[in-house]
Each structure stands twice: as structure tokens, then as C-alpha cells.
């Protein structure tokens, strides 16, 4: 069954709240959207609505963390990662405080609120901050696993979430070992998905298999640290790679992969699928995704180009 990632996230906060008395949850007037409201209902004394003031919320969380609490800050990814950047960098990451930064409505998933609310630069920014780990879960299971993982860290984690119900992929325990997940073994081309693009990549791989190609399909929820071992091993084998992400192709997941390819002197054909450095627009979510090339069809087309 498809569960919206935000519902899974809200429920996971409640579950973890039961076993982690030090867990406190903050939100910036969007608790009904991020679903941190579920935690508020269960643990009203450990929930703090900071109002429409994201930067202050992030700074407050840094203080709470340095005093031994485990804060989870929730807001729309764009306003959390971009309005709170300085506080995330200087108050949280520099001091290596274990704050969990949960960016809701990532990518284009706040589709009807348009460009001002669609988050296509957050990964690039978060990735460039030392000490900060960056995860983009692909589905509800991974969102829960990401929380579980983050609570075990002694450093901050940025978890970029999605608003909508999306198809689930098979659950894997590899993920919380900071590993990329090998979904299909193959020899002709490597396809690596990040975030909710996983299900598109899976469908595309099936179609390519039907056309006679052997696809190695990998899902990498981690942008940082990147599981270079799994990823490069596959690329060394297939010598062709497609990355797909719900983000600008500048600075995000594809950049992380391509940097690692170049750094390790791996020679391959490479195509990054994502938003092509443009501001996005308002509309139906699935239509928007395919308009910007984040679709099964585009993966198949791009793969065929590289394969032939």
C-alpha cells in the first residue's frame, strides 16, 4: 500500500517519542503539513511550534541539542534548508550537534504552491556543509529507517522528505549501514535513483530488460556519505550510468556521483536526469515530474541513447 511519506514520518516520530524521552520536535507553523502534529498530539510538552520563523527554530534546536536533547526540526525543505542555512552551518554543523533536520515537501512535491515552495537546491546546499549527513528517502519505509538511523548518530542529519503517496520499493537493511541498495544485477548499464525516483527507475529497468538490455539498478538514499564502493564497482562493470533525482542537476545527487567518478578516474558514459537548471512551476505533481524529465519514459529514452 502507498502511504504518504509525510504520514509515515509523523507516525515514526510518535513511535520514537515513546522510546526516546530526549526526543523533542519543533515546527514552524506547518505541523499540519509536515505531520509533526501527530507528535504534538501524543507528546504536547515535547513539541514546540516556533511560528513562521524558520531560522530561529533551527537556532533553538542547536541550543536544545547542546543541552542534551534530540531535536527534530520540521518545515518545508526549501524554507528549512535555505532560510536556516546559516544556522544549520554555524550553530548546528560546526558544533557537530545531533539535530535531525527534516525538510518536508522536498523537490516538486509541493506542486500546487509553485516555484517559491518547490525545493530543488536544498541537497546542493546541505551537501556542502561539513559534518552534515544527507539522506533522501525513496518511500515511507526509508523515511522511517532514516529517522532510526539519524537517532543513532552523534552528528546532524538532513532528511529530505516528500509530500505525496509514492510506490513503495522493497525494504532493505543495507540502507541504514550507509549503503546503496542493489535492486537488480545487470551488465549493460547502471541506473542509480535517489529519492522518490526509485520506482520510476525500477519500471524503466523492467522496460529495458524487455527490450533485451541487462540493467544494474541501484537505489541510493544517501547523498552523503555516498556509497562509492557499490556505485563505482557497478560503473566499472557497465561503463554506462544514469542518475536520477528530484533536484537541480547542479550540485545534488548526480554531482555527488560524478565527482566520485572523476575523483576515482573511472571512465564511463554519464547522464544526469533531474531538473535542468530552471525554476519550476505550479501544477499536478506527476505531470510536473514528467515535464521536467523525471519519469520512467525519460529514463528509458536516455538509457537507449547511451546504450546505442
Amino acid at each position, binding site marked *: 500500500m502507498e502511504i504518504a511519506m509525510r504520514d509515515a514520518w509523523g507516525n515514526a516520530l510518535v513511535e520514537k517519542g515513546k522510546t526516546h524521552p530526549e526526543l523533542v520536535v519543533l515546527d514552524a507553523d506547518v505541523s*499540519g503539513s509536515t505531520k509533526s502534529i501527530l507528535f504534538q498530539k501524543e507528546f504536547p510538552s515535547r513539541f514546540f*511550534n516556533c511560528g513562521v520563523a524558520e531560522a530561529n527554530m533551527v537556532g533553538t534546536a542547536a541550543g536544545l541539542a547542546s543541552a542534551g536533547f534530540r531535536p527534530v526540526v520540521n518545515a518545508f525543505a526549501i524554507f528549512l534548508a535555505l532560510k536556516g542555512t546559516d544556522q544549520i552551518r554555524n550553530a548546528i554543523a560546526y558544533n557537530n550537534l545531533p539535530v535531525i533536520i527534516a525538510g518536508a515537501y522536498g523537490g516538486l512535491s509541493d506542486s500546487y504552491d*509553485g516555484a*517559491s515552495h518547490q525545493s530543488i537546491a536544498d541537497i546542493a546546499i546541505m551537501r556542502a556543509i561539513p559534518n552534515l549527513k544527507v539522506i533522501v528517502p525513496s518511500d515511507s519505509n526509508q523515511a522511517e529507517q532514516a529517522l532510526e538511523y539519524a537517532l543513532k548518530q552523534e552528528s546532524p542529519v538532513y532528511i529530505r522528505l516528500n509530500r505525496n503517496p509514492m510506490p513503495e520499493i522493497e525494504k532493505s537493511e543495507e540502507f541504514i549501514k550507509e549503503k546503496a541498495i542493489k535492486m537488480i544485477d545487470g551488465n549493460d548499464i547502471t541506473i542509480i535513483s535517489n529519492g522518490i525516483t526509485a520506482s520510476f527507475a525500477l519500471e524503466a529497468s523492467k522496460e529495458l530488460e524487455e527490450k533485451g538490455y541487462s540493467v544494474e539498478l541501484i537505489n541510493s538514499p544517501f547523498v552523503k556519505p555516498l556509497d562509492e564502493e557499490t556505485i563505482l564497482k557497478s560503473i566499472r562493470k557497465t561503463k554506462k550510468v544514469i542518475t536520477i533525482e528530484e533536484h537541480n542537476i547542479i550540485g545534488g545527487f548526480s554531482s555527488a556521483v560524478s565527482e566520485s567518478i572523476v575523483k576515482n578516474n573511472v571512465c564511463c558514459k554519464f547522464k544526469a536526469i533531474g531538473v535542468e537548471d530552471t525554476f519550476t512551476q*505550479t*501544477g499536478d505533481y506527476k505531470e510536473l515530474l514528467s515535464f521536467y524529465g523525471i519519469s520512467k519514459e525519460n529514463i528509458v529514452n536516455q538509457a537507449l541513447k547511451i546504450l546505442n
Partner: protein
Amino acid sequence: MNKQEMKDKAFDIRCSIIKSIANCGSGHLGGAMSIVELLTYLYYEEMNIDPKNPTKKDRDKFVCSKGHAGPALYSVLADLEYFPIEWLNTLNMGGTRLPSHCDMNKTPGIDFTTGSLGQGISAAVGLALAQKLNKFNSYTYVLIGDGESQEGQVWEAAETANQWELDNLIAFTDFNKQQLDGYVKDILNLNKLKERWESFGWFVQQIDGHDFNQIEGAIRNAKETKGMPSMIILDTIKSKGYIPGENILENHHIKLSISDGEKAIEELKRREGRI
């Protein structure tokens, strides 16, 4: 326009907002409906603007800093023929020129792009400063939300506008006492809002934001006050005129069908004695 004509216009604008949001299926109806009197007064009575020449350099400008109220402004701009009225039927649909949040790249008549709360008022400070630098005899009006006023940037803007004595900047707070998650007083109370703005060096008035006489008087006072920016706090009702959304907790983003919209318009007609 006399006051009765303004009331009639405000009624028409309210119907138009309900229709366009119902046509789209959902939207920020609550925060759009609370500002209708203000927009009606500014756009039909007060502002020095020319819909035929929407980019005229020395025009008065309006920034809807709570950008999610865009649909209210679109209904006014369409009525003033800044763009074809049919555009309202495309509100917030793929490819539209009327997105949910104000966008000056897409919509004629929008003076500044907003959507990220707290930013519009700083841009308005810049617009007002530019009018002064250009020696234009024009005004910049800006509308912020009460929830929006929790953003620290709002108060940074307040300081600069005072420092630079921007008496051509007239700001409004849509004090509808509600934000997204609930009532402002429960989330982050805006203690002493009037005194707060006063302490930032602004000329502050607090009025009934649904009363045309009071809006007219307050703007006149603001224009007569020299050497400092003005804040007019509008006591308003969120969702005013979309009756099913009035006085309820969850009226920020409202789902409604076309027939819900039609029913609500009938209800409003009855309440205003228009049938």
C-alpha cells in the same frame, strides 16, 4: 466610487475569488477573503495606476507580501483588465500565468514576486527607497500577514524603513488572528502589535479592516504623516465572506467544489441582503 459602490465591488471580487478557487478545487481562500476591502479601496480608489500601462515607472506599487493571497489580487487585476478575465479559470493549473503565489514574471500588474513569507516587506522597502531616489511622488503599499510577522526579516525591514524615513511606505497587517497551524495567540502571540510597530518608529493605526470609511481615513492620516513609515493594522476575519470558512480553526487552505462555491455565493448574497 461612493462607499456603496465599493461594497458592491468588494462583493463581486469575493464571488470572483470563490469561483476561481472552486474551479481549481482548493486554495488559500481564508487569507484571500480577509483582504478584499483593502484591495478594493487601494485599486479602485487610492492608487495611482494605469492598467493600460502596468509598467509605468512612477506608478504607485503594491506588494502582497503574504503571497499566498494572490488569488484575491488576481480577481481585482482581472476586473481592471490587466489581463483577460478568462485567465481566472486557469488559476494554479499547469502552465498558468496565475500561480497560487504572486509572481511578477508571470502576471501583469503584480509589482513583486512573493511566496516565501517575510520577504515582500523588504522588497517594498527597496521599492519605496527607489521612489525616493527617483524623486517620484508615489507610494509603495505592502500587505503582510500576522503569522508572517513572526519572521525576523519583517522587523529588520521595519528598522530600515524607519532609519530611512520612508514616509511613502504604507504597510498593512492583515490581523485576522489566524495562521496556518491555528490561532496566532496559541502559536506565537504577537504581543502588543501596535506598540511594537510604534517602538520601531512607525506611525501606527489600528482599524476595522472591513470598513471602507476607516480604511480611507487611515490612509489619509498616513499620507499626512511625514518623516516616518506607516503601519495600518487591519482587524479582519479570516475567510470573511466565504461563510463556511469563517470562525473555524482550519480555514487556511480550503478544499471546495464548484457547487460548494455556488452555494457559498448564495449564502453570502443572502447575508448581504442582495436577494
